[in-house]
């Protein structure tokens, strides 16, 4: 009887030892695997996808394009929070024959050089830059205050999701037509 019990104990301690060895082996294997390169935060990937979508639901006056095949330029003013995401997304994309192009700029854009102007949250001179953006530029920024400063579309985070507000009057001043579909998805539309 005792022998059987002893054998049983031996077997269970063997099993336990095997389990511990396997566990450690797994941990060490996992440690030796290199970590995945850090990706752009999901928030800005989603915002990039929105930005791309905006170009499809906004109509620019034909005069802003030099010709039918002129590119549609998305300018990122100041700090670029998108990393490589936006570049990857617009690759091969075109809207009504206008190829999408990303341009990073350090100061306010030259007239007719940008169709979309994205202003990162960190920029302090937002109000002045928006005032000088002129017609034909879809200004996109972050936070509710962006619309008060004269912007057209502002990203907001609500309930942990990316939403956006639209200032219709500012869009009209910039001679842009925003489709009703885009307005129906917006969190709020300011008349």
């Amino acid at each position: 009887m005792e022998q059987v019990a002893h054998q049983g104990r031996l077997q269970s301690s063997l099993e336990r030892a095997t389990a511990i060895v396997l566990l450690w082996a797994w941990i060490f294997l996992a440690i030796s695997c290199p970590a995945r390169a850090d990706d752009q935060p999901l928030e800005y990937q989603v915002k990039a996808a929105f930005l791309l979508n905006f170009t499809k639901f906004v109509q620019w006056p034909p005069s802003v394009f030099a010709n039918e095949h002129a590119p549609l330029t998305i300018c990122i003013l100041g700090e670029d929070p998108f990393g490589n995401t936006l570049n990857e997304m617009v690759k091969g994309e075109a809207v009504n024959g206008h190829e999408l192009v990303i341009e990073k700029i350090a100061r306010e854009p030259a007239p007719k050089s940008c169709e979309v102007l994205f202003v990162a949250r960190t920029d302090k001179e937002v109000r002045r830059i928006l005032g000088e953006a002129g017609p034909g530029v879809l200004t996109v920024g972050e936070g509710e205050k962006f619309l008060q400063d004269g912007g057209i579309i502002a990203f907001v985070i609500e309930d942990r999701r990316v939403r956006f507000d639209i200032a219709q009057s500012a869009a009209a001043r910039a001679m842009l037509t925003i489709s009703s579909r885009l307005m129906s998805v917006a969190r709020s539309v300011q008349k």
Partner: protein
Amino acid sequence: MDTPQTLKLNMWKIGSRRAPWVVLALLSSIALADDPQSPPAGQSNPTALKQLSLEELSQIEVTTPSKEPTKVSQTPAAIYVLTGEDIRRSGATSIPEALRLVPGVEVARIDGSTWSIGIRGFGSDLTRSVLVLIDGRTVYTPLFAGTNWDVQNTNMDDIDRIEVIRGPGGTIWGPNAVNGVINIITKDAKDTRGMQVSAGGGNAEQGFLNFRYGGGNGNDFNYRVYGAGFTRSPEYHQDGRNFDDWREGQVGFRMDWNENRDAFTLQGDAYDEIAGKSVSATSYTPPYSQIIDGNALLSGENILGRWKRTFNEGNDIQLQVYYDRTDRRTPNYIEIRNTFDVDFLQRLRLPAREEVTWGLGARIDPVDDPVVVSGLQFDPHKRTDYLGTAFVQDQIGLVEQRLSLILGTKMLKTDFTSDVDFEPSARLLWTPNENQTIWAAFTHAIRTPSDSEENFYLLGYIGTTPNGTPYFARFNPNRSFAPEELNGYELGYRQVIGRKLYVDLTGFFNHYHDLFSEDIIGSTFLEASPEPVHFLLPADFGNGLLGYTKGVEVAPEYRPANFWRLRGSYSFLHMNIGRSPHSQDIGTAPSIVGSSPQHQATVQSAFDLTKRLQLDLTYRYVSALPAQKVPGYSTGDARFGWRLKRQVDLSFIGENLFQPWHVEYGGDPGPLVGIKRSVYAKLTWSR
């Protein structure tokens, strides 16, 4: 990388035993996952994102509720975060029910309004040794060093998250955080703007109505007000004593200001409720022992203010003040307590990767507990309890972003202890790469004595001798009751495998001494006063128990696709608690050991059928509680959510679906109360 496969198979095994619908859901979703038409699995793949519609983009959650996603996975403690979304999708109507989703937490419903909640053992209706906080306010009564769950209600939609730390959290938190901390955090007022009304009802949740309105100046000042009320039916009673019906009404508010460097919060709640309870009362005169069913009248208010100034990253100070009034009138005791509390905390970032946190806290709470029934008495019934604490913690980065050491200690003094007690801890955190965390901890924690040991007389009826003389046991207060002590050793491991699988593994060994016991302190004698003449067994509340607990908790999370999330948990617990050589304990030890489940397992599936339809399924297994005469059980919950319009949500929720009723815990006098199968519908309108 066959780990996801293995996991799927294990879940399959658990699911197939009793829950064919879990299997069905698994099958259908595996089929869906292979469908090229379904949304792309890796939601953060840029090219996949641009295929999504505007509406789909608006539905992607981009931040974790804690706002610092790395924080949880890199905490050197067994932490689990339940998000507001998790709670909403569980259909839980109360905080204890929501806690069922947290691995390693033992939740057992005793009756309609009473729960036993334990972490790593020691579950009881008193929930000793677990510290519970709501927005920084300790909801813990020094009456019995526990939490009255029946008055911890709120509008469930306002909860941002519940953070649960299993294991001792004594250094920063408080004196009662021996086996765990439950930290309930409500949403910032800026996240609850607009109007929301939800209402519903069913067989157990007979009716409920929640209202919330939030507004602000659109910038740095936001507020909300809320009201909530419910009425619940009694649970299932084999003897027909349907005593545990429950009605509650509650109102509250929260205001948040955010200036540049300063953040102010002011919030408050008031509640009033009637909860049916059953208690036993003992008297020296016949019938000696009787069961009283009656209503508890419970009301209370609290108000809390918090100011935080951030100097720069890692440097801030915080000051918090609150007042809490509890007015608790149950059929066998009354507690009227006014708590005043002030806490200060500072974080300092020093050169050489060092971060110091220190704090001071003081609490004073005058209390009155007048006698209600014979056999149970607080003496003196008017007292003032107090608590003073100080803590310091130093986080030292040994290797940049890879290895850090956290050393700390708390010092505390209460009116129940003669000395200053120390609660030191040491934690080591190793992150070999971004995807992995290994941590180890040693903690010394104490549970301070409470009124129910130091100021409490309890009479118990044992029986009647053949010649008709009654026989009682009487516990006298022990004014020198010592703190219960714990030395805890923990080891944890977390890994993110690919983008879809997350594994959290923790093992612990807790060594306890000076645990509460009910000791016989002499031999039986004949006592003439109070009349009539009776036999008395003299007894005392002592510190006679010691022993250890050990266990393992595994909590994997698997996201096969962005519309499907699977979570599981398994907890194993072994308790070995016994009397010390000099203790004459009369049965507390086997009761403690036999009141916590050795095995617990859960599987949860959150599945978005379409953009408008959600299906949530939960399966859980809890092994037997011999001391409570509760057999092991399996049961399951289901929720079907339907977004009718952008502003209207309809959901149908079924809880404890596997059987008409099942028992989870003793605790009430008389036969065990059966927890009913509950079905209800809920309509939410928000604008």
